[in-house]
């Protein structure tokens, strides 16, 4: 399976930016982060000792609506726990994350936004890294669809998602802990266990390598774990930026 394509700091005005394309859904997200900046209108008054995180999702070919606000809430809640808002220069300031869906199938009004959520989360992470916003850890995320026969599809297209019985989004921290779990549709606990295992394998590779061949095969199907792909993109960028230093050493 082809890994995602990501580029860091494609924009010049924003403090940090990233573009991310998911190969299986074709969705292409451009994200920008401005931080730490002063928020007008005293929106900082609620938490004077912490940074305020704002997320804005802009759909590609339609005006924003309820679906965007819903997914913004999920992203904001998750990032709020990872961003170290008390670090120097961040208290009482804003971290403004703007995500624009610039390519791929758009989510029709009323359709589930969960299919896009992992791509949005990855773009946010890369943009935050590009802006050097202090974070406690990194993460990777994926979405899985379960259809009527119990078959699991990784990162389904809009059409596949519509046909699925349940949708599950998982995000794991860089050390493998579950950070986010959003599910939609009816499913039983057994199914959840199964998709959880599969999601962990997609994000981190098969950690518990057992002796039977099945697990090893699963790793082949999913290719390089997402965690590694994101890390590589970031390391490559830093290598590039500091080539004057690294080459001299």
């Amino acid at each position: 399976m082809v890994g995602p394509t990501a580029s860091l700091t494609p924009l010049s005005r924003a403090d940090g930016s990233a573009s991310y394309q998911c190969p299986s859904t074709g969705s292409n997200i451009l994200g920008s982060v401005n931080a730490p900046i002063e928020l007008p209108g005293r929106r900082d008054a609620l938490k004077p000792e912490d940074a305020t995180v704002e997320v804005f999702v802009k759909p590609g070919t339609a005006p924003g609506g309820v679906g965007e606000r819903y997914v913004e809430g999920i992203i904001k809640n998750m990032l709020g726990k990872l961003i170290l808002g008390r670090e120097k220069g961040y208290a009482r300031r804003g971290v403004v994350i703007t995500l624009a869906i610039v390519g791929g199938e758009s989510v029709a009004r009323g359709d589930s936004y969960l299919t896009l959520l992992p791509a949005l989360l990855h773009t946010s992470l890369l943009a935050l890294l590009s802006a050097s916003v202090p974070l406690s850890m990194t993460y990777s995320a994926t979405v899985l669809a379960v259809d009527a026969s119990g078959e699991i599809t990784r990162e389904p297209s809009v059409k596949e998602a519509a046909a699925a019985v349940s949708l599950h989004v998982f995000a794991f921290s860089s050390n493998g802990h579950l950070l986010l779990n959003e599910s939609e549709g009816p499913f039983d606990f057994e199914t959840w266990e199964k998709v959880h295992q599969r999601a962990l394998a997609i994000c981190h590779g098969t950690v518990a390598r057992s002796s039977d061949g099945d697990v090893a095969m699963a790793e082949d199907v999913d290719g390089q774990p997402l965690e590694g792909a994101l890390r590589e993109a970031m390391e490559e960028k830093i290598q590039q930026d500091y080539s004057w230093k690294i080459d001299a050493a």
Partner: protein
Amino acid sequence: MASPLILLPGDEVPSEYLPSSNSAPLRLGAGLRLLSQPSAISPSHVISATQPGLLSTDNKRNAVSILSTPNRRYVPTPGDLVIAQIHHSSPDYFHCMITPQAPQALLGQLSFEGATKKTRPMLKQGDLVYARVLSTGLGAGAEVELTCVNPATGRADGGLGPLTGGMVFDVSTGLAARLIKASSSSGEQQDGVAGLVVLDELGKKLEKAGGFEIAVGRNGKVWVDCANGGDYAVKATVAIGRCLSTIDEHELSSTDQRKLVTRILRDMKIES
């Protein structure tokens, strides 16, 4: 020296990368934090990264920090040199802008060399000053304070004070830090300091055109003035600005930097 180590937030710094001297306490710089895991048997400490970047160690000062992405927004740190723009003044302070869309910093009306109530500079909105960050305060509601004198000596070391005339160019904070490093260290080096030879090269080539004055602020601003340039003043200033922004966008080797300077000076029709 160990091979360069690139860390992402949450990564632990391997102990073999830390400076080894045991005499002085270890100093943690930007992008790192100390985490301790309380445990009944033996509490353990790890140093973990909070920003992505290249690990940089200084054995002399027993310090370790992260060199983060060069495009990031400037966060005031005590001791940094910045170019600030006056926004408005109040009886005691000039309120200055260091970075746009960020809270204003305070510069005391008397924080200039030899300033008294009568001799203090009358700065108006839009004027520029070269200042040092004095303090960033603690806790919420803290305000950044700037000064244009060294509080210990009462002198304006290193050209601190109002900047008149000239032009300001915006560069990335990463390039600004490199420019400061390159201009503060003396000694001729073939490859330049911090991989930059552009200022040396411009200095040589523009000597005939009257040379130039330059001040670099950590907040990503570079002030350039070619006051002695005569007819070439404007063109030489523009040429310097174009060289800096090109180097900011493309990583150039020292040979390419020299070529760039020659090309832009020729393009601007400046004799060297």
